[in-house]
């Protein structure tokens, strides 16, 4: 489907035009690349003293590797906490009791509207004052990420629960199961399996958001890259390497999500698909084209 459906299978004239356009475009891209490299080279960005530390300093990569480990630790802990939290919120939002539904809705819509950075500042600055105890940067980062992603995961799981056929609940209730049993044993497993790609995608976003930790002094990858860049005066090189690390990390996690969604598509071919991206930002009117 996709792009190829926009234009017919190209005939000989179209093929020739596309070939010419490709050559021109290729030349254009090459030109831009050459100019870029020239600009970088003129400013000594390819020189030995910029790349030297990356290639020769023994302690640099272990230093950054610890940063990467801290990034992964924060992301994994935050996910481990946010996932159950989000599930609880999702179930709460579909509760029989109106007060619980409203409470969860207020929480989710409020938290989703604010930046993660604000939550990190809250745990870093306000928490020690409120509770008279110091919070290590790791926990400020993890708690902020948990609070925020709990709300997002709530919306993801809710989308999954809504996508399930109503008959599931009706059938289970007809054989005498209680509400929480049905949710726990029948609805949630299916909803989670359906939303697994979205949840893994959210994990990628979580990894990216962990980099905000540098603002409150958490020694994750970006904070360490900043320190290294200042020390060796090669910020562009270090940040390029950092970006590459993040890209490799996130692409690997996303690839995993693709594999899972493909295996799922093979398994349940007739199922209805979930309305795309209905768990993202708050639009208060339900979409008319479900």
């Amino acid at each position: 489907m996709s792009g190829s459906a926009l234009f017919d299978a190209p005939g000989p004239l179209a093929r020739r035009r596309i070939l010419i356009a490709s050559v021109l475009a290729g030349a254009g891209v090459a030109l831009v690349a050459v100019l870029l490299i020239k600009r970088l080279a003129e400013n000594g960005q390819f020189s030995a003293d910029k790349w030297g530390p990356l290639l020769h300093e023994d302690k640099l990569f272990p230093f950054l590797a610890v940063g990467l480990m801290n990034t992964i630790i924060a992301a994994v802990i935050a996910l481990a906490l946010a996932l159950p939290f989000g599930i609880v919120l999702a179930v709460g939002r579909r509760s029989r009791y109106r007060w619980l539904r409203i409470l969860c809705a207020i929480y989710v819509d409020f938290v989703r509207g604010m930046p993660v950075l604000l939550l990190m500042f809250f745990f870093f600055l306000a928490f020690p004052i409120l509770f008279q105890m110091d919070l290590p940067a790791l926990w400020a980062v993890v708690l902020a990420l948990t609070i925020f992603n709990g709300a997002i995961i709530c919306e993801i799981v809710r989308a999954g629960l809504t996508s399930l056929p109503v008959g599931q609940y009706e059938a289970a209730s007809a054989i005498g199961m209680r509400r929480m049993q049905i949710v726990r044993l029948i609805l949630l497993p299916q909803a989670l399996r359906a939303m697994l790609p979205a949840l893994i995608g959210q994990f990628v976003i979580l990894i990216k958001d962990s980099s905000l930790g540098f603002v409150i002094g958490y020694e994750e990858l970006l904070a360490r890259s900043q320190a290294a860049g200042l020390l060796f005066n090669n910020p562009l090189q270090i940040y390029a390497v950092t970006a590459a690390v993040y890209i490799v990390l996130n692409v690997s996690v996303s690839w995993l999500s693709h594999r899972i969604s493909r295996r799922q598509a093979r398994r349940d071919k007739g199922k209805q698909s979930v309305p795309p991206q209905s768990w993202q930002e708050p639009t208060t009117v339900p979409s008319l084209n479900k």
Partner: protein
Amino acid sequence: MDTLIQEGPTIFGAFVTALRLALLAGMGALVLGIFTAAMRVSPVPPLRWTAAVYINLVRNTPLTVVFFIVVFGLPQVQIRLPFFTFAVIALGVYTATFVAEAIRSGIQSIPDGQLEAARSLGMTFPKTMRHVVLPQASRTVVAPMASVLIALVKNTSIASAFGVAEAMSAMTSLVNVHSSEVVMIMFVTACGYVLIALLIGRLFAWVERRTAVLR
């Protein structure tokens, strides 16, 4: 409470700066995003690959890293601009990828039959685009656009760490000055962001309702 009344104008002004940042970056992102989306679906392979590389590289990098590369990397090649401009560039380049993906998904959501019908009527590519593709795609694009815009407004908070005096940096400096009212200041700032997000959500929901077609 008095702190609030006293510092109200500061907070408000800071949010105006944040919105200005979001608006400028958003416009840049829209232009760049549309351009990139066009490249992404074009039949010319080099354009498609360049766009795909750009989108995939930038989407998988944290915004903070993009900020670092722009704010600390560009001066290394003799490009020195005010922090605000750097922030607009970083936010624009980052958000453009999400705009491009939203537009691409909008175009792909059009049923094949539409395009087949257009072709069997003899419509050329520009005519198809104008009368068939873009009107339908723009309806599907509205919802994710709201998402992208709200994320952009929230992302302006990151500029606070890079020398831009917007809402988040105003909050931190106020918290330093009035350290007894930390929670109140933070709560007010949070409410500001949430209010903006809800307003944008409502606006786009209204647009969606107006352009919705029951299928």
